[in-house]
């Protein structure tokens, strides 16, 4: 039974990925609204999956992903301006991700060793807000409050963006999937369930927490990089906006925190709802979005995956049972 369901979901996943790969080849990427929509979805999927690893699996809820997103965008812009990298340069993207991961490691040593639970969440929130001020006051290097303008004449088509974002989302998914099948994944879940017990069993708690935190930051940095290339204008208010921290959190919880498919589901549903509201009820769209969040938390606090997916999720990933058991106990 387990094998059958695993096979089914794998088949569905591969088919879906193939559809996404083939889709832009069939339509005109410049005309199709869906290509842009999926591009945004992929970015959110990667951000949400990164946060899911940190908060859902390792149990360290961070509210500072916007720090890494913004940093990634700025690394991309600054290296391009300096002439070290070019347009849609993989080197720049890797650098952006690595820079974000490096910051996460440095900050993580201090924050993760000292702070737990809410205090860690608030600490990371503070980090993001500090970075915004630092980049606003950064003078020539960061362009101050106006930010950096990149040569937008490099833009040719939405196609490359689409495929890069798809690749980032896919690699985030595959990375988390592989990680959670390894000993590292077991260690992370052990830390989430009971830190002291994990430490007693010889798990280097801080090391694994930092690993998860840096991985999440790496994917946020990548997303910031590609979104920076897309907008051609990196400014502190937009790229260090708290939305980049809160929306992935919302998507993950909406889809199902601590599940592999939850963040993907949440990212697509929430982006879809927000975009539809933006098209059909533009005047009251933000009000509606707030209301939607409230309704979801009222009636579906454990996420979409908990609906029919409780058993399925259990079979796809045995260690999720910890979370579903918790919800059953309540």
């Amino acid at each position, binding site marked *: 039974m387990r094998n059958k369901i695993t096979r089914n979901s794998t088949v569905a996943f591969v088919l879906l990925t193939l559809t996404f790969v083939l889709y832009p080849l069939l339509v005109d990427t410049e005309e199709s609204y869906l290509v842009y929509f999926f591009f945004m979805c992929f970015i959110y999927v990667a951000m949400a999956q990164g946060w899911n690893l940190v908060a859902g699996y390792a149990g360290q*809820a961070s509210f500072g992903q916007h720090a890494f997103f913004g940093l990634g965008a700025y690394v991309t812009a600054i290296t391009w301006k300096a002439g070290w990298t070019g347009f849609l340069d993989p080197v720049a993207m890797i650098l952006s991700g690595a820079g974000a991961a490096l910051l996460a490691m440095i900050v993580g040593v*201090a*924050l993760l060793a*000292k*702070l737990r639970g*809410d*205090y860690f*969440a*608030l*600490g990371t*929130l*503070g*980090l993001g*807000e*500090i970075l915004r*001020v*630092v980049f*606003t*006051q950064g003078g020539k290097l960061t362009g101050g409050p106006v930010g950096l303008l990149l040569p937008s004449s490099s833009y040719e088509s939405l196609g490359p963006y689409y495929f890069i974002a798809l690749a980032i989302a896919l690699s985030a998914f595959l990375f988390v999937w592989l990680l959670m099948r390894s000993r590292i994944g077991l260690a992370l879940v052990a830390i989430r369930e009971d830190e002291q017990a994990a430490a007693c069993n010889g798990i280097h708690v801080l090391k694994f927490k930092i690993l998860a935190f840096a991985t999440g930051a790496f994917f946020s940095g990548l997303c910031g990089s590609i979104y920076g290339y897309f907008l051609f204008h990196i400014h502190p208010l937009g790229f260090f906006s*708290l939305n980049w921290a*809160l929306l992935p*959190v*919302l998507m993950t*919880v909406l889809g199902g*925190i601590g599940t592999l498919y939850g963040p993907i589901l949440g990212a697509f549903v929430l982006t879809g709802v927000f975009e539809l509201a933006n098209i059909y009820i533009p*005047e*009251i769209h*933000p*009000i509606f*979005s*707030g*209301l*939607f*969040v*409230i309704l979801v*938390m*009222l009636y579906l*606090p*454990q996420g979409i995956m908990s609906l029919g997916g409780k058993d399925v999720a259990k079979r796809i990933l045995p260690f999720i049972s910890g979370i579903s058991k918790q*919800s059953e106990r*309540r």
Partner: protein
Amino acid sequence: MSAASAFIQILINGILFGSMYGVAAIGLSLIFGSMQIVFIAQGAVIILASYFTYWVFTLTSLDPFFCLLLCLPFFMALGWGFYVGLFHKVSAAGKNPSLLLAFGLMVLLENLMSFVWTPNPRAVNTWYTAVGLSLGPVQISFTRLMVFLISIASAGLVFLFMKKTLWGKAVRGASEDMRAASLLGISPRRVNSLTFSIGIGLAGIAGVCTSTTYPFDPYFGFLFSLKALIAVAFGGLGSVGGALMGGILLGLLEGVGSYLISGGWADAISYAAFLLVIMWRPQGVFAKATRAV
């Protein structure tokens, strides 16, 4: 004006303004104490109260400080409604949903205000808005002084309530250990709805105060929530006096920081101080040092 008196002026302004952070922080701290959630929509509620005051003032030209008497029961009822209608149900599902619920509420309130009252900044302008009192070389704005007095008075009332009444005792007990408190017959539902209505009522007071001293717009609230959060961390969670002192300390820090370095860095300074405090003195700046566990 000499440098010394300018500095004193900054200190006084910092204290006066910080007391407003303090009132917001007390509400946040109470809600955190009993529910263990950071009520991030606090700032949006504060701005809602500011609009309420503005609205009443513009329509009926009722004095803003008098409007406090109208505002307080309304917002206490609103807080009770928040708990009974929203948070009571969701708190059973865990912490993340409650936090996100508060976030959704914040987005909803902000955009509702911007829809109803337009996103343009508003201010309540009365005949005494520009009146200042001179104490030697130092100027004190009348409205800010009023704000300070109201803040101290409301903090004092909450403090007395917590220390002297049975209800207050129940709230203190619940914030120490909800499980043990409920074993002793304290109803979590009642305590939570009480703290919510006091917390939101305090947000109403802070909102009236904001409207008389500063121009505000619908999105100003989030910043207020963050400031209140920092003040709570300074004062140590769950302490009424600490939250007020934390607010004043934050006001001082911002005033002195923007005077000595530059206005643009003021926020970074307060967040950096916030990080330092939660890392090395999580029990708050004013608490007696406890043994590290």
